[in-house]
């Protein structure tokens, strides 16, 4: 079917209102590989404790594209000179890379496995280096294969001359993205459009306030900061007036992880899902992001998994999901463990013996200094550029979370508590 290549469309979004897309983007969105995201929940089985957490990667992906465009426009509007001087951008170049950033934002999650992050432990190992594939690898592979034609063959691409590799390169971080790598922090960084969207979207759907922050203030404060002695290239940063909005983003992430994503019951269902998936997947692993295996991977979505669980093919853990009969947390360390906490954990593990069915780390770093420390540009302070961690005492004091949670079977809870009490008395 031929359509008007210049036609615009609007999609209703519960967070951002209307999201505008053009015909090119629509044709990409209409591809089966992208439509699959309608069948991948954003937060896996979080609905088993927050019942409304049923939203999908599909709406999140549209939201990330929308937010990335707003951030892009803010940077161009406020920092055009920096971009022209240090990255040799022209108007045409900026128009072209706006497109590129939109497409990369739209497609950054297209490689998610069923139930998003919860089943990523089952990605296969790479042939070299031993590390597992990540969902970015699947996204890049899908863009280069399933979505290549939709990206490259649209009439509007006559104006930009993209190939699918340009988009994939920006997502995976490769030299083929050329100077557009400057924008990669908008797709994958401490102040990226992904984070800005999911914190607010997840809060909205779940019905919590933890993930909310002043999105418009933050967007209107984002700029490009010129190179200095330590940084050879421009980097995204914020104007001084927006630092509290940036601080709120970091704190929102901390609250969402501690209150929602690392909630003890949610973590329990991540365990059950992972174990159920191990039973369902041939060899207990997802297919690789290459050749025919990639096609097999794309056949996996939440619907297929739920169907198999419903048919009783996912073993004990599938049954537990259906019956909402999850493992029970028996002990957790503080969010930031000391040596003493780790010793206590070890002692409890010994007291509990074979009652421990799972030990799950909830490791997360809330804010990272270094290249990714958000630079803040001041009109009055000297030096003019200082990191957000210098502005915010809250952020400066944030320590990496290295919490560990111990689980037992619900039927063993009483016995487990008894053993812990006994262990305490013996001490």
């Amino acid at each position, binding site marked *: 079917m031929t359509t008007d290549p210049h036609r615009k469309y609007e999609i209703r979004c519960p967070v951002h209102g209307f999201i505008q897309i053009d015909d090119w983007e629509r044709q990409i969105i209409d591809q089966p590989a992208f439509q699959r995201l309608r069948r991948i929940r954003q937060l896996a089985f979080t609905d088993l404790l927050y019942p409304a957490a049923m939203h999908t990667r599909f709406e999140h992906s549209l939201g990330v594209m929308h937010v990335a465009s707003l951030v892009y426009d803010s940077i161009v509007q406020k920092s055009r000179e920096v971009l022209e001087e240090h990255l040799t951008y022209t108007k045409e170049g900026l128009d072209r890379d706006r497109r590129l950033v939109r497409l990369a934002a739209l497609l950054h999650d297209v490689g998610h496995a069923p139930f998003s992050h919860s089943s990523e432990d089952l990605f296969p190992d790479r042939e070299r*280096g031993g590390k597992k594939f990540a969902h970015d690898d699947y996204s890049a592979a899908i863009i280069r294969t399933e979505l290549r034609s939709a990206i490259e063959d649209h009439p509007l691409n006559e104006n930009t001359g993209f190939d699918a590799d340009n988009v994939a390169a920006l997502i995976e971080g490769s030299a083929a993205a050329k100077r557009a790598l400057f924008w990669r922090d908008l797709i994958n960084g401490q102040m990226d459009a992904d984070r800005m969207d999911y914190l607010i979207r997840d809060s909205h759907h779940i019905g919590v306030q933890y993930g909310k922050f002043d999105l418009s203030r933050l967007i209107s404060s984002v700029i490009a900061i010129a190179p200095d002695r330590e940084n*050879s290239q421009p980097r995204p940063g914020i104007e001084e007036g927006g630092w509290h909005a940036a601080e709120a983003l970091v704190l929102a992430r901390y609250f969402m992880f501690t209150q929602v994503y690392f909630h003890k019951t949610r973590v329990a269902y991540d365990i059950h899902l992972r174990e159920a998936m191990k039973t369902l997947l041939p060899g207990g692993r997802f297919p690789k992001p290459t050749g025919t295996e990639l096609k097999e991977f794309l056949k996996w979505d939440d619907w297929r998994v739920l169907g198999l669980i419903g048919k009783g093919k996912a073993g004990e853990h599938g049954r537990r999901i259906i019956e909402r009969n999850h493992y029970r947390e028996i002990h957790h360390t503080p969010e930031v463990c000391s040596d003493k906490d780790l010793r206590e954990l070890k002692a409890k593990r010994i007291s509990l013996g074979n009652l421990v069915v799972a030990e799950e780390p909830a490791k997360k770093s809330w804010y*990272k200094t270094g290249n990714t420390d958000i630079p803040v540009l001041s009109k009055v302070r000297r030096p003019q550029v200082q990191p957000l961690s210098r502005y915010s005492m809250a952020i400066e004091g944030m320590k990496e979370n290295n919490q560990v949670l111990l689980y037992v079977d619900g039927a063993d809870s009483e016995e487990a508590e008894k053993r812990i009490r006994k262990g305490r008395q013996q001490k």
Partner: protein
Amino acid sequence: MSDNQSARLATLVALAEKQPRLGRTAVMKLCYFLQTLRKVPLGYRFTLYSYGPFDASVLSDLSSAEALGGVESKTVLYSGGYGYEISPAGRSRSVKSLGSGFIKKHASDLQWVVEQFGNFGSADLELLSTIVYVDRESAQAKARRTPDELAEKVHEVKPHFNQPYVRQKVAQLQELKMLRSLRATSGNR
């Protein structure tokens, strides 16, 4: 803590001991060079940003090493901007002992990376590591390039460096036999 993470934390402490006033960019890039040029199995997954190869796990490990008292980090302000200085802290020996076998096994690699790259500033480290990254990507794609072609590819990522300077850094790395994708210039084939 896994054995791999223990080894990584110990490596970070060892780097801080070997190179006084180590910056965060330097930590990132030295880890990249160790893993890529010396095959030290740190298990990081570096991808390319405009500031060169980067893996946020390096910074997470640095935070862990700091929390355990192996290193300390301070922000240093100077006219026009800021940087970081990392140095060994009170429990550095204890954190290093977590991966003592690994450190012993790779002692010569650690020494090598500090000798080769320890004295470069952050801008140069970003450029040198980007050259190695682009070179390895080319080699993996079985693309053979002349030094000038490789410099051109790097310049596309980092247009704020002037081309002769990029070519000079490619030549330096070539001299040290650290590049894999290079072929002779067409006249010499």
